[in-house]
């Protein structure tokens, strides 16, 4: 009976979402305050029903209700309770429900914090959020019902995909979705602005922390996914340019462009149309990402079953969202344009260059990801685009960004001074060159490693120089407002990330070897001794567990126990062993027994020495922290909007004159 209640809750939520999506729009159009006031209570009601539906699904998983098809397909009696909760978003239907739940979290937050926005504008924003919810709820109810029954009820369920049975996987999707869905706020703002035909700077200021938080979550989700792929998939890589990774990377890139473009629009009023366009794209790519991953359009590790009805619905939904908002953009964008002019040498210009690079990189990734679909549609044959395509183009596009990054903060809005840039160029340049020369001796002249050190020093010194300048010039207490501190953190993160990537690639040692018990391999200064394989068992798996003792110059470093797990339904999963460190990771994965019947004999093993690999995720986490720190700036708090709103209007008139 309870699963039907879940379904009922979803239907009620859909009705409320319709009310939230349609009535306030009519109210804003007609000037009817009663209709506009529907938005907030409708959103709250919808959130209650969605939370109820989600809770019922969690309950069904916890209580082994295998009469629910989705539960039976994704869990079984042996699955531990924490993975049964993770299984809620382990496949298509449940992950959609999670998406909707998170959308409601954002909507409720928006409803709570937007009370001081102009009534008409807030009503439109809430309505757009409601319309998005309508789309997703309808998709869930009509094509992907998580509460569908399976009768007669089976005695035991199937299994959660073993690659998902990992702590990293329990929080990767929710965090990622927080990011995806968070871009809906910026999107709703832009659409509301276009509908009203105006975009006050004060509103953009108000939207900025939301975008920053969304981007921070997305960064965190991608880092978690990358770390999970590294630890769990047994290939030791941290990024594969897999369609699914690309799906989350595209909105990240556009979101990155968006948070910078919003800064320009908020401070100077320029690039308004571009900011709006970016928020449309960021959200559209988030939608595309959600659907690409879960619909099975692209063959990939993450893809679940495909169903033609879903494909049609997705296509229609994407067409309405992308087509509709672009049409609205074409009609209304000229109305909202404006802002102050800027010189060639100005902060706006560098931000614009960065923006273009991120946008082009995103388009490049989009092309590479969808090319197999395009090729198929045009009957070019079965094509896949290899990772070298991305690996070649992406660094090339990011090179100007890395080179220009230290100068950005030193340039003034409107018109920068070249004289301020020269000392930065000299100091950061000399420091980077000096460190690169020193590094060259330590890394045997490997170019990538030298470039990595140079990039870190270049960006790090750039950040430091600006921090020093603020220390000297700004009054105490106002030296590092959160927005500025966040920027510095994130830019430092870029340096750490680039250094991590280049150093790992240049200095890492990978070795696939055949080892008999007692044999030793020497890799990256460490001795790996293989002590054989034994059987072991866990809550819902059996495994062959290898023991590898690692020593360095005779001193014990680590004892590593990689596993090859077999789950109840026969799925095999490699569980690698990682000895993590600040400067290096040691990584061991079991391949297979050389003689299939004899697990105590020789095995194929994958041994890695990965220097600085943690820096990749460390850099990502710094960027995330930067995003969150920016969002905490007092300047973005709502109470100041009331004071600054007339100023914003004044500025607008100024520019129009």
């Amino acid at each position: 009976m309870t699963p039907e209640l879940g379904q009922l809750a979803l239907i009620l939520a859909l009705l409320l979402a319709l009310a939230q999506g349609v009535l306030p729009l009519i109210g804003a159009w007609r000037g009817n305050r009663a209709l506009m006031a529907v938005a907030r209570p409708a959103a709250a009601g919808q959130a209650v029903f969605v939370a109820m539906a989600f809770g019922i699904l969690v309950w069904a998983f916890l209580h082994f209700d295998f009469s629910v098809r989705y539960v039976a397909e994704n869990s079984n009696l042996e699955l531990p309770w924490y993975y049964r909760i993770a299984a809620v978003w382990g496949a298509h239907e449940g992950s959609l429900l999670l998406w909707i739940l998170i959308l409601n979290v954002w909507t409720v937050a928006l409803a709570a914090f937007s009370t001081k926005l102009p009534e008409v504008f807030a009503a439109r924003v809430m309505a757009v959020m409601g319309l998005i919810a309508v789309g997703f709820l309808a998709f869930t109810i009509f094509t992907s019902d998580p509460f569908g029954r399976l009768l007669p009820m089976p005695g035991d369920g199937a299994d959660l995909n073993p690659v998902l049975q990992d702590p990293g996987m329990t929080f990767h999707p929710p965090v990622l979705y927080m990011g995806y869905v968070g871009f809906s706020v910026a999107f709703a703002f832009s659409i509301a602005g276009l509908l009203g035909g105006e975009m006050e700077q004060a509103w953009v200021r108000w939207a900025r922390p939301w975008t920053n938080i969304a981007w921070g979550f997305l960064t965190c989700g991608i880092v978690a996914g990358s770390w999970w792929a590294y630890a769990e998939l047994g290939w030791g890589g941290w990024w594969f340019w897999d369609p699914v990774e690309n799906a989350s990377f595209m909105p990240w890139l556009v979101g990155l462009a968006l948070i910078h473009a919003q800064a320009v629009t908020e401070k100077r009023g320029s690039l308004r149309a571009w900011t709006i366009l970016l928020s449309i794209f960021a959200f559209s790519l988030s939608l595309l990402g959600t659907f690409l991953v879960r619909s099975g359009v692209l063959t990939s590790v993450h893809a679940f079953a495909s169903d033609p009805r879903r494909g049609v619905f997705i296509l229609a939904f994407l067409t309405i969202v992308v087509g509709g908002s672009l049409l609205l953009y074409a009609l209304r964008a000229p109305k909202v344009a404006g802002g102050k002019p800027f010189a060639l040498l100005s902060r706006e210009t560098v931000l614009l260059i960065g923006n273009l690079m991120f946008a082009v990189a995103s388009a490049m990734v989009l092309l590479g990801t969808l090319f197999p679909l395009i090729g198929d549609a045009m009957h070019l044959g079965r094509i896949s685009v290899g990772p070298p395509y991305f690996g070649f183009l992406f660094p090339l596009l990011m090179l100007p960004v890395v080179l220009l990054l230290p100068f950005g903060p030193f340039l003034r809005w409107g018109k920068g001074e070249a004289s301020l840039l020269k000392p930065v160029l000299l100091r950061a340049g000399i420091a980077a060159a000096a460190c690169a020369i020193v590094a060259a001796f330590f890394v045997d002249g490997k170019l990538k490693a030298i470039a990595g050190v140079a990039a870190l020093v270049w960006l790090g010194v750039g950040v430091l120089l600006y921090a020093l300048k603020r220390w000297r010039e700004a009054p105490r207490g106002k030296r590092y407002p959160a927005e500025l501190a966040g920027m510095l953190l994130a830019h430092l993160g870029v340096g750490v990330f680039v250094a991590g990537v280049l150093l790992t690639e240049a200095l890492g040692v990978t070795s696939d070897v055949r080892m008999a018990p007692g044999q030793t391999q020497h890799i990256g200064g460490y001795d790996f001794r293989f002590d054989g394989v034994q059987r072991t068992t866990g809550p819902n798996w059996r495994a062959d567990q290898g023991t590898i003792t690692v020593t360095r110059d005779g001193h014990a470093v680590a004892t590593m126990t990689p596993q090859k797990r077999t789950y109840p339904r026969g799925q095999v999963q490699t569980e690698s062993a990682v000895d993590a460190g600040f400067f290096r990771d040691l990584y061991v994965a079991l391949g297979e027994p050389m003689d299939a019947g004899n697990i105590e004999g020789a095995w194929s093993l994958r041994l890695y020495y990965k220097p600085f690999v943690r820096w990749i995720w460390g850099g990502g986490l710094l960027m995330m922290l930067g995003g969150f720190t920016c969002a905490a700036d007092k300047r973005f708090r709502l109470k100041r909007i009331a004071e600054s709103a007339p100023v914003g209007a004044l500025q607008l008139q100024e520019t129009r004159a």
Partner: protein
Amino acid sequence: MNPTRKRRLIIVALVVAAASLAIGLGVYALQQNMNYLFTPSQVQAGRADHYKTFRLGGMVKGGSIQRSDNSLKVTFTVIDAGGAMPVEYTGILPDLFRDNQAVIATGHMDGARFVATEVLAKHDATYMPKELKDAMAKAHANKKIEEAAAQDKTP
């Protein structure tokens, strides 16, 4: 020129420059990295002759997996309904690699054998990559595919 126009001109110039550079490089990189998927019979019919690197898809022939005694070199035969192709690979095979499973190998031809640099296996017992199914269906009559699929399901 007034400042607004100048700014617009700069923006347009930047966009055009970036776009043309990106398109040029993108086309180049795409051409270098497009991998076509062929089945053994398609390769034997000469379809893959123009491509240095391509992907070979099919089933691992039962009992064809041979390991070397002292290295990680492994040879096996990939079949579709009308052809067979010996494959050589050095390295660790994926978890799901076994007899009568669908695989996709990336690599190049060396004489009559295919030297793989990467081998991917399908992810679970009931799932065959859609593109592989299509490629095999294209090469052969549907009936034969169903037979192969039926064989695949019975261990």
